[in-house]
């Protein structure tokens, strides 16, 4: 099974990379892109067949390593 983990900076954390990207897009004429937040994306190939187990495992892995709870939060998709 494959799990996808999306890790993003918490809203309260200033994201200079996202801001720089937004500025660059504005300079290219994309005024309609109001804001950009940059995050990380992980694909996990899991040796389970149950979606519930996959989600739990991905969650544990995200808690333990993939996300830093001080500054990041995450969400999981399983298929």
């Amino acid at each position, binding site marked *: 099974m494959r799990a996808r983990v999306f890790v993003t900076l918490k809203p309260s954390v*200033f994201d*200079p990379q996202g*801001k*720089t990207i937004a500025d660059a897009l504005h300079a290219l004429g994309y005024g309609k892109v109001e804001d950009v937040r940059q995050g990380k994306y992980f694909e996990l190939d899991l040796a389970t067949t149950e979606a519930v187990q996959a989600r739990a495992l991905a969650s544990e892995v995200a808690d333990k390593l993939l996300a830093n709870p001080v500054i990041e939060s995450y969400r999981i998709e399983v298929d």
Partner: protein
Amino acid sequence: MMDPQVLERHGLKPDEYERILRFLGREPNLTELGIFSVMWSEHCSYKSSRVHLKTLPTDGPQVLQGPGENAGAIDIGEGLAAVFKIESHNHPSFIEPYQGAATGVGGIIRDIFTMGARPIALLNSLRFGSLDAPGTSRLLEGVVAGIAGYGNSIGIPTVGGEIAFEPSYAGNPLVNVFCLGIAKASDIIKGVASGVGNAVYYVGAKTGRDGIHGATMASAEFDDKSAEKRPAVQVGDPFMEKLLLEACLEVMRTDALVGIQDMGAAGLTCSTTEMGSRGGAGVEIDVSLVPQRESGMTPYEIMLSESQERMLLVVKRGREAEVERIFGKWDLHASHIGEVTDDGFLRVKNRGTVVAEIPNRALTDEAPVYRRPMEPPDYLAEVQRLDLESLDAGASTAPGGASIAPSSNAALLSLLASPTIGSKRWVYRQYDHMVRTNTLNTPGQGAGVVRIKGTDRALALSVDGNGRYCYLDPYRGAILAVAEAARNVACAGARPLGATNCLNFGNPERPAIMWQFARAVEGIGAACRALDVPITGGNVSLYNETDGRAIYPTPVIGIVGLLEHADRVVSRAFRKTGDAVILLGEGRGELGGSEYVKVVYDLVRGVPPAIDLAAERALQLLLVALADARLIRSAHDCSDGGLAVTVAECCFDTGGVGVEVSIGGVEVSRRAAVNCAAALFGESSSRVVISAAPESVRVVLARAASAGVPAAVVGRVGGTAIRIAVGGTDAIDVPVDECERAWSTAIERYFAQKVA
């Protein structure tokens, strides 16, 4: 008979194919064709350059290892060797600036530690198009980030270098990277395979499909199809290389290795066949044993892959387990992939079946060698004419140029604000230049200086080139490049000991380019002999052209010098108000090919400054002696922008202390304004501005006199302005702060960024 299109895609000519048939006594299969194509590419075989490179001086009592190995080595005393080399990664850096530059750094570092030396410093020489042109700032940013990303991560300080901006390099940036390492002279280990039955090991990253035909890409020009070549750029992993570096140095200390070589251009092919050739042996490997990170790779792909961070080792009989264990400690897997044989063949198997079999010497020593036709370029006679009288006559010949001479103050500020001369701090503060706590000066000095712990010694290193001079006169331009690199090292107080060269040129199949190359190599040879800095190795990068337009011929020279006492190191900035300013050498107001004529009049014309190599040598030896005797407080050589720029630069980073200087006039034209500019901004060679305590002046002048070096007190450190009088008339009077502002924002202003 091989399909001619297949041959062409492999960069092989029909006559080269005939040679392959003669070597093998049969048609090659596709894997063998691939192997020949990379080993006979310009990048790996040096087929266009070898006959000329053979004329370079490579001997000397201080040379421990000359050209022919992964890097050169010179004796620096106390049983130690300085191991160093410079290499190019030009074409990949244009295609993917960050990774191209990063993998260039990775490659040169491997060349150093594969010799058994711990890398202790990096330099780089970068050339781009004009910063005003679209795309240049992105290139600069990517290349600098790549060099920083790799060098900082692996923990080797980047301590200096040079950056120049010229329209000539717009489609063909130059990224030359230099690395220096230290080894015990007795511990230097070579890239050789010998001892029949000894195990051949592969260690490092897994092999993937990246970079296949990277060697052939570096041997061809760019055209509009270059965008499709993107897959040929490799991604570097500095963490993997750090592990490899530490693990290899640890293995080498056990003396369990016969030989070791890194896999760079042409990957597994190049390392196996070169190690075999050097040892007079054969090497047999089975590609199915090579760790792979992609599935379904063919022997062709495995042999040609340029995946980074991989090493090939030959292990002494009975020491295999020990070697595997040490790599295991660093979480690296050393795979036994083959054996040394005695038949002189490179034999490639796949699951036991032979898929390629070629005599080593066919791929190395007996690769084609060309003596290509040469002819002086058409443009030369015309561009060597610089009509000084017209410079101030109300009409410049270049659309971007001034029509009347600007005031000297304005000219100085323009030069200081030009990116080639201006401060490179925006760049070097991205490089960790302090890691390993050996760096004795800050970047931007001319030479980087690193101490050698456990001794009293230090090494000074510099890389220098001047494409514009070489365009106008490749022979003289090359001599000037060698002289400047050695002079920078001498200014730091170090005696120049050895050199490495990176030769960046256009398409050698064009007689004009080949002529430039040959003349430049002659110039390097003449200068290296006169200055006693033998060439210990280097790199050639040809085909630096886009749509038939070549870059300026650009030989870049790296020189290493020795300070026997690290505490004698001299830097560029004036240190104390009241110190005397002394000019060593003489100015003749030579404006040919100068930064002044380019920046003010947008012209590249004239002949480069003359140089007397004997006088240059005397000057360099004098500088070393003065430093050793602690007689001088600072030293800075005159180069781009001439004396006025040099004097100004000596006032920077001093907290605003100025200088008052008075120099003689020169008469190079009928126009006073031009003569004044020639005195201030002419780039006559073999000149250094030093400062000394007033009580040392007499001794300094006496030493200069007995060394036969012209020397005169020209001024005094003090005040808050840069004031220069020419022939008794005030010519320059600008506050130091204003000059320093122009200089420090030269590159920074292109990247001014508001971050909330």
